[in-house]
């Protein structure tokens, strides 16, 4: 798996945020590769730059220096419309607070992601229903977000993220607003869409419950990558948790 060509690659990313006295160096030279079929977790304390890195990988923010390569092409120097085009072609997003459209029902929330891609009409509606069934919401198609539980809303968001079959899915703290049971369900879903559909999935989290689902854990602290663990081939989930514990002990 590690030998696969990356679909998304960040090299020496530096990002300054804010202006004047409030200026912060959120990322201080970060390099990261995402390959298909893997669920990568990006872990780190609050304020360590996780969201900033995710935004840059997702072509939402441009780095101050460094380069992001998406599907083999550099994104350096692209304008907002070109970046938007890259996002809709290649990337699905999942947010901590779901960011569903409150005035649209589940199917419509998924359809809108297809609509921005120009996929309309019956095929788009059918595709939206299909992905909602895939995430286990076949019985909630017409529900509005206000009539869905948090876990269900996040699953609608997952369906929206994968509806257009992007090669990359980026999730920012997808389980932070969910209880344990729903958090596990969403992580299992993310692991599944990575493996079954051969996508690169990167989830930002500081929720240790999520560790068991990862193929790979990247640690970030104070704007720098400070470590990376990979689940050995054939080893199932609890092992990586052990690896993490070992590393913690070593650091201590």
């Amino acid at each position: 798996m590690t030998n696969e060509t990356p679909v998304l690659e960040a090299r020496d990313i530096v990002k300054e945020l804010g202006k004047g006295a409030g200026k912060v160096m959120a990322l201080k030279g970060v390099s990261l590769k995402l390959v298909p079929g893997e669920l990568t977790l990006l872990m780190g304390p609050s304020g360590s730059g996780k969201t900033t890195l995710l935004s840059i990988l997702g072509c939402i923010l441009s780095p101050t220096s460094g380069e992001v390569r998406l599907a083999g092409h550099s994104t350096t120097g692209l304008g907002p419309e070109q970046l938007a085009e890259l996002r809709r072609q290649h990337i699905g997003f999942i947010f901590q607070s779901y960011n569903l459209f409150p005035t649209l029902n589940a199917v419509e929330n998924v359809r809108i992601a297809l609509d921005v891609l120009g996929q309309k009409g019956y095929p788009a509606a059918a595709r939206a229903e299909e992905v909602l069934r895939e995430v286990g919401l076949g019985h909630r198609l017409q529900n509005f977000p206000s009539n869905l539980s948090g876990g269900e809303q996040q699953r609608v968001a997952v369906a929206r993220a994968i509806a257009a079959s992007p090669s990359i899915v980026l999730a920012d703290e997808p389980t932070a607003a969910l209880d344990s049971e729903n958090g596990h369900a969403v992580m299992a879903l993310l692991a599944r869409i990575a493996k079954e559909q051969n996508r690169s999935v990167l989830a930002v989290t500081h929720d240790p419950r999520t560790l068991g689902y990862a193929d790979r854990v990247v640690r970030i602290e104070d704007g720098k990558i400070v470590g990376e663990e990979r689940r050995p081939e054939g080893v199932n989930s609890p092992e990586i948790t052990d690896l993490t514990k070992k590393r913690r002990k070593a650091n201590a």
Partner: protein
Amino acid sequence: MILTLAFRNLFHDRIRLAVTLVGILFSIVLVAVQLGLYLGSSRMITNMIEKTNSDLWITTFGAKSFEEGGILLTSGQRHQALATPGVKAVIPMVSAFAEWRKPGGGSTRVAVVGIDAEDGGLEPWNLIEGTWDDIRAPDAIAVDRSYLGDLGIQGIGDTAQIALGRVRVRALTEGIRSFTQSPYVFTPLQRARNLLNMDGEKGDKSTFFLVQLEPGANLETVRTALQERLEGTDVLTKAEFRDRSLAQWLFKTGAGIALIGGALLGILVGTVIVAQTLYSSTKDHINEFATLRALGSSGSYIHKVILAQAGLSAVIGYSLGMIIALLILYLSRNSPLPLVMTPGLAFSLFALTLFMCAISAVSAIMKVTKIDPATVFSR
């Protein structure tokens, strides 16, 4: 989905929707009423000219309008006109204001129109009682039924005094109203001359000559020839004389300016209200627009959502506004100045509403253009 989202955003906040619709409605009704009055006035002013069966009008030089032509054209001039090649007929007509003395006391101003029906220049129209023949009887006149009250009479058979002579109502018309609010009094040519004190040497003078051309005669050629022969006159096409009357009553008196000003005010107020509500709606839904942007929608996709919202407001607001405008129109049908609505005006109002809403969308669009999609993560 653009329409769906626009529709849901619009109906999500009912109060704001109501404000938006009231804004558009107010605008539409105000503009419809002002322009309806404008059209109504225009029709009233030009009605008499339109109804005549004439290719050219000969007026005294600088005649301002149908009611203010003076009584100065001579029969000599008429014969000169008749002798002009291409001219088939030259029909004399008299039109002037005069004082009407009511049988019960008091007086009012009327516009006396004298023409002989058998000359074919102005056919009687909208007669509801009596015939044109009845008006040939001594003293006979025709007036519009709607003015009976103003004239202080009840109907057929009543008498009154115009300037020097006694007149008797022998026929009634309906819906021939006058913009000047001075009722038209129809009577044969010679009696009009007599009433207006044009006896003796002035006994054959006229206000206008209605010129009818021989078949195949060139209008411009005849017009030039007439203008050369007849000194101290204007030779005008029907359209030119109509425009001159309109200019006189609508613009020199300021009435038209006031109506158009009112319409512009309506547009302005409507645009401001719609812009305001659209902007605040966009602000309320800004997170959704940011999400759309993060999902990779193009800027124009989001603009379309806002424009669709504006367009939907326009359609709904226009429909409601038109219902009210048509109601007002209906209620005004018997007033001194009935409103007029034409398919053209209705269509223009719709185009105007769409335009107004599109302009209103500008500030909202400027707002979403500044969205930073990175804000999607900071919630």
